[in-house]
C-alpha cells in the first residue's frame, strides 16, 4: 500500500456534510425539548432598576424567566482561563446574567424558556426592564484616562493588566542611527463562523448526569470550567460538540450562555435548546483583536536592526474572556521581533476594560497583531533608509544555522529556513520584473503596489509546564486512543475537536500509514468528553502537531504490541518481525506472515497470546511536546488602486508557507486559503464600529463586510518543508498562517501603491473612501 501521508486526499467528511447528513446543534431534537432565548442589554452601561417579566410569563407557552437576581448564589461567575502572572491582573466576576448592572450591549439580562421558538421570541418583547443609563468607556486609550467611566468600580483606570517583557538598555537605543515610529490600530473584528453558537442541555434526574451539546472548540475545557460554575462533578457532566460550522476562536470561550442552558435543563428537568441568532452573534460572541500598537524600530543606516520597543493597549471588553488576557501579552509580546534577529526587544501591554463585548482569541490570536506591527514597521524602515523591503528582510532574518533559534524575548523557534520560501515566492511572482512593471505603470499614472510579509508564527501549544508558567489554567498535552476491533477495523479517539478543518481525513491518513490499512477501515471519534478521557481542544493551530502526534504515537504502540503477537504466532523474536503495508513477516522468511487483520483477531480473541500479555489491541498516548512549533513563510500581494475611487483590486496573491511536514496538501492549502481570506478581510473590509456611547453600529452583515470569494484573485499557494523536531510527525500548524501573513502583506501592498502620496499608514479596514481621501489630499498637495 502506498503511503497516504503527503498526498492530497479529498476530505472524508465532505460527502456527509455536502449531502445534508451532518448533525449540527440545531439538528438535535430531543423529546420534550424546550427553547431558550436570552434578553440582552441595549445599553453599553446601565444600572438595572427593575425587571418585570409578568407579561411574558402570562404567555401560555412560556415556562420560565430567570434574571440575574434569581440565579444569585446558584451559578458561579464564569472564570477566565488565562491568568497571566506578574501583570497585576484584575479579574472582575462575570455572572451568567447581569445582576444589577449591564456592562456592554449584549450583556445577558434575562433567560426565557418556552415550549417553542416562536413563543420564546415573543416573550423577549414582553419583558420590561427599567435601566438607568451610565456613561460608557468604549475605546481603550480613552478608558485609561483619569475621570473615564469605570466599567468595574473597584478597578482603577479600567486597567485589567499591565504586563512587561524584555528590557532595552538606553545605550542600545541611543546608539541607533535610525528610529522609525508608528502607531498601528489592529481593529476589532468578529469571528463570524457560518454557524452561530448553540447549546442544548439535557438532565437525567435518575443518574444526575447533565449532558451539554454545545458549539465548543474544546469540550473538555467546557466540562472543566462549567463543572465548577454549575457545581456538578466532572464525572456527571458530559460535553459534546456536534458538527460545527467553524469557530475561528469564537467558540473557544466558555460563555455565560452555555452555563445558563445547563442550569435551566437541570432546574426544569427538561431538555433546553438555545441557538444564537446572527444579529445576536455580533454582540454576544467574543470579538477579536482591538489593539492599539505603538512601535519603535531602531537600527543603523545600513539596515542592521538593533532593537524594537512596543506598547500594546488592548481592549479586553467588559470582562476577561477565556483566553483574553493572554492574547495581547504572551501571544503578542514574545513574538514582536518576528522572523528577524533583532537583538533587543521590549513590550509593554495594557489590557483595558471597556463597555464593549469581551475580546478573545481570534484566528492567530496575538500573532497576527505581532506580525502586523513588525512587517509594517520594517517596510517603513526600508523606506526610511531607501532599501528594498526584501533586502532589508533578508539582511535581518534569523539565519538558518542559528536554529533552534532563541529570539530576543527568549522564545526558542524550533526550526526554520526563512530564505527558502522567500526565494521561491520571489521567483513565482518574478519580483525584479514586477518592480520594473510597477515603475512603468506609475509613469502611466497607475497605482500598482507590491506588498511582502515574511512571517513566523508561534503555534501548536505544548509543553504543559510552560502553559503553567504563563498562567494558562490548563495543560496543553493531547491524548489519543487507537482501538483495533476483531475485524481489524479501527476506531481512533482524539481529544482535538475539529470544526471544519478535516481532522478525520488527515488523522486518518496518519493511522492508515502507521497500520497499513485502508482509510475506509478507520473511524475517528472526537469532541465527546465521555469518549475521550481528557484533552485541551482545537485552537492555536495545535491539532496536527500535538493531537496528530498523539495519534501517531498511539498507532505506533498498537504496532509494537501487534508485532509481539505476530512474533509469538510465527515463532520468531519480536525484533525479527518486519511490519510493512499491513503485513507482519519474519525477517528473511517471506512466506511466514500474518496480516494486520489476523493479528487484530488474535489479539481480541486472546486464545493464544504470549505469556503474560493482556488481551485486546488498543493503545493510548498522552503527548506533551517539548516546545511550540513555528511555521513561517512569505506572502506577496500585488494590488492596483483606482485613483478616482480608491477601490483596491488584488491582482495576484502568492504565498509560500513552510508548515513543516504536510500531511495533506489539499486540506493544508484549504487552510491557507481560508486564513488568507480572513486576514485580507481584516485589512480591507471587516471592522467593528462602535458609537461613543458604546452602541455597535456595524451589527449586521449588511454593514459588516465578510470576505467573499469573488473579491480574490486565484491564490497561488505552495509549500516548502522544514520539519519540526518537536513532534514525531515533523508537522507544524497551518490553520492560522494565512491570517497572520496576509494582513501586513495586503497593507504593505496598498501602502506601496500609495507611496507617491507619501502616506505611511491608514487605519484598517482600508475602505475605498479612506484611500480616496489620501489620494485627494496628495493630489491637492
Amino acid at each position, binding site marked *: 500500500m502506498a503511503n497516504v501521508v503527503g498526498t492530497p486526499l479529498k476530505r472524508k467528511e465532505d460527502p456527509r456534510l455536502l449531502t445534508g447528513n451532518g448533525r449540527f446543534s440545531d439538528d438535535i431534537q430531543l423529546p420534550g425539548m424546550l427553547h431558550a432565548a436570552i434578553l440582552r442589554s441595549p445599553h453599553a452601561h446601565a444600572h438595572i432598576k427593575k425587571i418585570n417579566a409578568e407579561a411574558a410569563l402570562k404567555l401560555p407557552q412560556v415556562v420560565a424567566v430567570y434574571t440575574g437576581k434569581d440565579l444569585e448564589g446558584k451559578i458561579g461567575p464564569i472564570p477566565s482561563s488565562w491568568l497571566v502572572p506578574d501583570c497585576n491582573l484584575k479579574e472582575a466576576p462575570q455572572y451568567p446574567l447581569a445582576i444589577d448592572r449591564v456592562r456592554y450591549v449584549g450583556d445577558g439580562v434575562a433567560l426565557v424558556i418556552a415550549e417553542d421558538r416562536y413563543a420564546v421570541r415573543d416573550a423577549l418583547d414582553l419583558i420590561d426592564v427599567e435601566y438607568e443609563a451610565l456613561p460608557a468607556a468604549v475605546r481603550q486609550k480613552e478608558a485609561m484616562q483619569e475621570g473615564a467611566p469605570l466599567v468595574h468600580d473597584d478597578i482603577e483606570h479600567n486597567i485589567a493588566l499591565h504586563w512587561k517583557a524584555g528590557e532595552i538598555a538606553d545605550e542600545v537605543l541611543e546608539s541607533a542611527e535610525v528610529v522609525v515610529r508608528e502607531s498601528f490600530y489592529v481593529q476589532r473584528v468578529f469571528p463570524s463562523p457560518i454557524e452561530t453558537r448553540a447549546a442544548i442541555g439535557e438532565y437525567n434526574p435518575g443518574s444526575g448526569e447533565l449532558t451539554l451539546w454545545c458549539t465548543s472548540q474544546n469540550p473538555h475545557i467546557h466540562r472543566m470550567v462549567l463543572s465548577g460554575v454549575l457545581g456538578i462533578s466532572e464525572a456527571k457532566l458530559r460535553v459534546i460538540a456536534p458538527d460545527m460550522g467553524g469557530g475561528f476562536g469564537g467558540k473557544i470561550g466558555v460563555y455565560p450562555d452555555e452555563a445558563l442552558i445547563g442550569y435551566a435543563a437541570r432546574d426544569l428537568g427538561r431538555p433546553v435548546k438555545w441557538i444564537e441568532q446572527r444579529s445576536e452573534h455580533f454582540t454576544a460572541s467574543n470579538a477579536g483583536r482591538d489593539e492599539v500598537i505603538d512601535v519603535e524600530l531602531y537600527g543603523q543606516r545600513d539596515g542592521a536592526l538593533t532593537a524594537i520597543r512596543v506598547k500594546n493597549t488592548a481592549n479586553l471588553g467588559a470582562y476577561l474572556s477565556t483566553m483574553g488576557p493572554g492574547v495581547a501579552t504572551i501571544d503578542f509580546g514574545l513574538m514582536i521581533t518576528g522572523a528577524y534577529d533583532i537583538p533587543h526587544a521590549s513590550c509593554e501591554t495594557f489590557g483595558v476594560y471597556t463597555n464593549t463585548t469581551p475580546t478573545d482569541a481570534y484566528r492567530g490570536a496575538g500573532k497576527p497583531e505581532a506580525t502586523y506591527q513588525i512587517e509594517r514597521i520594517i517596510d517603513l524602515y526600508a523606506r526610511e533608509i531607501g532599501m528594498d523591503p526584501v533586502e532589508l528582510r533578508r539582511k535581518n532574518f534569523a539565519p538558518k544555522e542559528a536554529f533552534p533559534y532563541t529570539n530576543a524575548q527568549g522564545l526558542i523557534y524550533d526550526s526554520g529556513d526563512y530564505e527558502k520560501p522567500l526565494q521561491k515566492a520571489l521567483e513565482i511572482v518574478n519580483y525584479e520584473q514586477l518592480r520594473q512593471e510597477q515603475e512603468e505603470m506609475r509613469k502611466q499614472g497607475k497605482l500598482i503596489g507590491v506588498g511582502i510579509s515574511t512571517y513566523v508564527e508561534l503555534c501548536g501549544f505544548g509543553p504543559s509546564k510552560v502553559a503553567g508558567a504563563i498562567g494558562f489554567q490548563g495543560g496543553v498535552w493531547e491524548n489519543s486512543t487507537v482501538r483495533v476491533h476483531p475485524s481489524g477495523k479501527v476506531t481512533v479517539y482524539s481529544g482535538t475537536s475539529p470544526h471544519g478543518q478535516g481532522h478525520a481525513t488527515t488523522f486518518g491518513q496518519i493511522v492508515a500509514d502507521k497500520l497499513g490499512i485502508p482509510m475506509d477501515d478507520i473511524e475517528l471519534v472526537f469532541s465527546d468528553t465521555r469518549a475521550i478521557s481528557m484533552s485541551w481542544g482545537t485552537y492555536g493551530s495545535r491539532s496536527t502537531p500535538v493531537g496528530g502526534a498523539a495519534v501517531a504515537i498511539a498507532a505506533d504502540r498498537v504496532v509494537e504490541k501487534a508485532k509481539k503477537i505476530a512474533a509469538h504466532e510465527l515463532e520468531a523474536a519480536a525484533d525479527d518481525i518486519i511490519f510493512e503495508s499491513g503485513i507482519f513477516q519474519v525477517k528473511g522468511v517471506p512466506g511466514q506472515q500474518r496480516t494486520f487483520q489476523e493479528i487484530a483477531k488474535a489479539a481480541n480473541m486472546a486464545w493464544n497470546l504470549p505469556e503474560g500479555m493482556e488481551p485486546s489491541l488498543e493503545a493510548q498516548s498522552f503527548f506533551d511536546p517539548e516546545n511550540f512549533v513555528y511555521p513561517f513563510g512569505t506572502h506577496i500581494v500585488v494590488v492596483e488602486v483606482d485613483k478616482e*475611487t480608491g477601490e483596491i483590486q488584488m491582482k495576484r496573491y502568492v504565498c509560500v508557507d513552510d508548515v513543516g511536514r504536510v500531511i495533506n496538501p489539499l486540506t493544508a492549502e484549504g487552510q491557507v486559503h481560508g486564513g488568507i481570506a480572513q486576514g485580507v478581510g481584516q485589512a480591507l473590509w471587516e471592522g467593528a464600529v462602535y458609537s461613543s456611547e458604546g452602541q455597535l453600529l456595524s451589527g449586521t452583515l449588511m454593514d459588516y463586510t*465578510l470576505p467573499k470569494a469573488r473579491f480574490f484573485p486565484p491564490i497561488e499557494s505552495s509549500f516548502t518543508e522544514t520539519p519540526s523536531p518537536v513532534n514525531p510527525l515533523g508537522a507544524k500548524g497551518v490553520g492560522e498562517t494565512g491570517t497572520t501573513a496576509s494582513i501586513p502583506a495586503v497593507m504593505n501592498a496598498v501602502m506601496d501603491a500609495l507611496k507617491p502620496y507619501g502616506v505611511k499608514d491608514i487605519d484598517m479596514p482600508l475602505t475605498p473612501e479612506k484611500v480616496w481621501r489620501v489620494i485627494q489630499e496628495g493630489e491637492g498637495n
Partner: protein
Amino acid sequence: MIPVKFDYVHAATVDQAIKLMQDSDGTGKVIAGGHSLLPLMKFRLTEPDVLIDISRIDQLKEVKVEGERLIVGALVTHHDASKHPLIQAHVPLLADTASQIGDLQIRNRGTIGGNLAHADPAADLPAAAFALDAEIIIQGEDGEERMSVDSFIIGPLITMLPENSLVTGVSFSIPPSHAKSVYLKYFHPASGYPVVGVAAMAGTDKAGAIDYIKVALTGVGDVAFRAESVEQTLLGQKPSEKMIREAARLAAEEGEMGSDLFASAEYRENLCKVYTERALRSILL
C-alpha cells in the same frame, strides 16, 4: 429572526387579491418573492396580520410589446427579466440591470413589481426604471391606472400606491434601436446593493452627434433620480473624453447624497461623477 404570528392566504386572481386586501382592513401585506418583506418581518420592523400571496397569478408573469412600450408583468423575476428575449431585444438596459441585482438566489425570487413597489432607496432597478421612463401599472378598487415611476416612488420605502391596490406590471419606453445602454454598479461589499448604480443609454446620429441620452442614478440617496444636467449638456454634442468628463461632473446635481458607515456624502458624490463618466464612455466612445 422570528416574525410575529401572521395569517397567510393566496390569491388566484388580481380581483381576489384586491378583495383580500379590502378584507384585511389595512393589516394585510402583499407578498410575491418576499425578498424585501420577509427580512423586515423577521426583524419585526413590520408586523402584518395577513400575507396575501400573489405569486400564483400567472397573468402577472407576462411580457409583451404595446406600441412603443414594453409591458413587464409584476411577477417577472429578476432572473427571468435578465434572460427574456423581448426584454433583451427591446430594453437591454433592464436585462442588464436585473442581471446585477443581488445574487442568483435573490434574482430567482425577487420580482420586478415587488422591487419597485418596495421602493428601497438602495435598489438597483429604479435606475433603469427612471432611465426608461417607466410607468407603474396599478390595479385598484376603481380599475387600472398608470403612474410614472418618479411620481410613484416619493421617498425611501414610500410610494404613492393607493390603498387596496396592486402593482400588476411596469411599462418601459422602448429606446431607439441605435441607442446603446449600460448599467454600471459599485457594489457595496457587504450587502451587494449599489453604493452608486448608473443606468445610461445614449445614441448618436449620422453626423456623430448625440441625439438620444438618458442617465439615471440609484443607491446614493433616498430615491433614484435622472441626471438631467448631464443629459442636457451632452445632447446634440459630439462625444469626446473631455466632454463626457465635464458632463459627468454634473451627475450628482439632481440628487441628494446620503451618508452611511461605508461612504460619506462627499465620497458618494465623487462616485456619481466617476461612474457616470465610465458608463458614458463605455457606450459613447
